[in-house]
């Protein structure tokens, strides 16, 4: 790969990473504004107003809207015809480092066990990168997520007994949000994974979290459960910010996979009101389009 092209590749991912820290994706911002409109309790409304002020200040001053810009996680779908496959890992690490130093993002990453801060959000296994192959495509689809501390704390995964059923799933989710939700900056995005073991259920819950708010599972029974859990969580009234109001969540997404009859794995991943995720496509000529922030960037 020519050096100039390589630099263009890095810059594209760097700008995308920085943008994700400064602007909320369209779906999150729209739902937040809607919740502000729907809120009836006066003090709670004031909290939503503070969030909306923060969003406009971040855009105006071009600064990360929350100081915790998280640990950077990239979820990459690599088209088998994308020409620069070999360069991807190094480009992502370089883009993460450059975005951290130049935006600036907060250098969060500390080395495992040593707790020494590396200063640029790269390190052993950081940024976190996951790859999937897309046969026949010449595009690179890049999704990224900023995993903040407070909103990652509720995350957990558990294997239930199948006889606990749907009620068991609901109870586990409600209890988790009840115990940990108030400190995770609600209204929350809740991702739920249903699978066989703790690990795959956790991974599915992350995939669910990456899906835009308002979208539904293509599996009808799962889609119905998304709405039921959303309504159940909202009736707790934990948002905004644990002060208490009329709702709890921005949305609830579930990703499910057919599972072992003897297990019922449930994973939970949560994002805060400032859930920062981005979604872009880089074509084989390195031209790119951002899917997640079309409206947000117009301002």
């Amino acid at each position: 790969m020519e050096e100039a092209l390589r630099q263009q590749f890095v810059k594209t991912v760097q700008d995308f990473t920085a943008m994700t820290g400064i602007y909320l994706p369209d779906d999150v911002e729209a739902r937040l504004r809607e919740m502000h409109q729907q809120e009836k309790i006066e003090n709670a409304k004031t909290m939503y107003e503070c969030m909306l002020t923060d969003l406009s200040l971040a855009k105006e001053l071009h600064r990360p809207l929350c100081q915790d810009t998280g640990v950077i996680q990239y979820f990459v779908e690599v088209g088998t015809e994308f020409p620069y496959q070999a360069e991807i890992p190094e480009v992502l690490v370089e883009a993460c480092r450059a975005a951290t130093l130049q935006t600036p993002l907060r250098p969060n990453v500390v080395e495992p066990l040593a707790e020494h801060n590396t200063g640029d959000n790269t390190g052993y296994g950081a940024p976190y990168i996951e790859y999937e192959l897309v046969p026949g495509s010449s595009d690179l689809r890049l999704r990224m997520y900023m995993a903040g501390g407070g909103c990652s704390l509720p995350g957990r995964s558990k294997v239930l007994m199948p006889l606990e059923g749907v009620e068991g799933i609901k109870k586990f989710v409600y209890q988790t949000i009840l115990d940990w939700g108030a400190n995770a900056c609600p209204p929350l995005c809740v991702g739920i994974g249903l699978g066989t073991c703790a690990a795959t259920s956790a991974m599915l819950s992350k995939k669910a979290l990456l899906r835009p708010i308002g979208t539904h599972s293509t599996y009808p029974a799962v889609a119905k459960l998304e709405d039921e859990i959303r309504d159940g969580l909202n009736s707790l009234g934990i948002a905004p910010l644990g002060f208490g109001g009329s709702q709890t969540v921005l949305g609830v997404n579930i990703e499910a996979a057919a599972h072992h009859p003897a297990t019922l794995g449930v994973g939970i991943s949560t994002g805060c009101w400032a859930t920062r995720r981005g979604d872009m496509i880089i074509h084989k000529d390195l031209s790119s389009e951002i899917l997640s922030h079309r409206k947000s960037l117009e301002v």
Partner: protein
Amino acid sequence: MKKILTTPISYDQIKDLRIGDTVYLTGMLATCRDSGHRRVVKEKILPENFEFKDGAIFHAGPIVGKDENGKQYMVSVGPTTSRRMESAEADFIEQTGLRLIIGKGGMLEKTTEACKKFGAIHCAFPGGCAVVAAQEVEELVGVEWMDLGMPEALWIMKVKEFGPLIVSIDTQGNNLFDNNKKIFQERFEKLL
């Protein structure tokens, strides 16, 4: 009318505040989180240029930038989860005479007791609203304990009408988030 606390904070300034009240802070404020608490409480080390007595701390780890003249400034500085400091906060208050703790979410029983006994309060700043907070920092005065890294260092700030701060623990032993938790728990039990 805005209720504004100014540093140094006397007991009189906070004694009549009650959970749910909204206040603002003008004066000196230092960030202090996990490692800072360990340093003060366990290692008994105090910063050289910041006074905790009658003072205020902010559970926060900022993003600090440099302007074109090389001067550091607050880019983004929202609160972090206060509950993480629960094991150290009561001792911190007793050892230093701190009056105001600002953070995110609530704190637990030990801190609530210490606030009552030694005359201090905990307030919650709206989580995530980090640029709002940065704009209320008039001046970044200095930094200590940079060996702890940017998020954990003690950043000393001069703030003006810093808030909104919602009183979550008052001097009478009331705890807003504790009360809320009971309400959420009752609603949860109805759901099952």
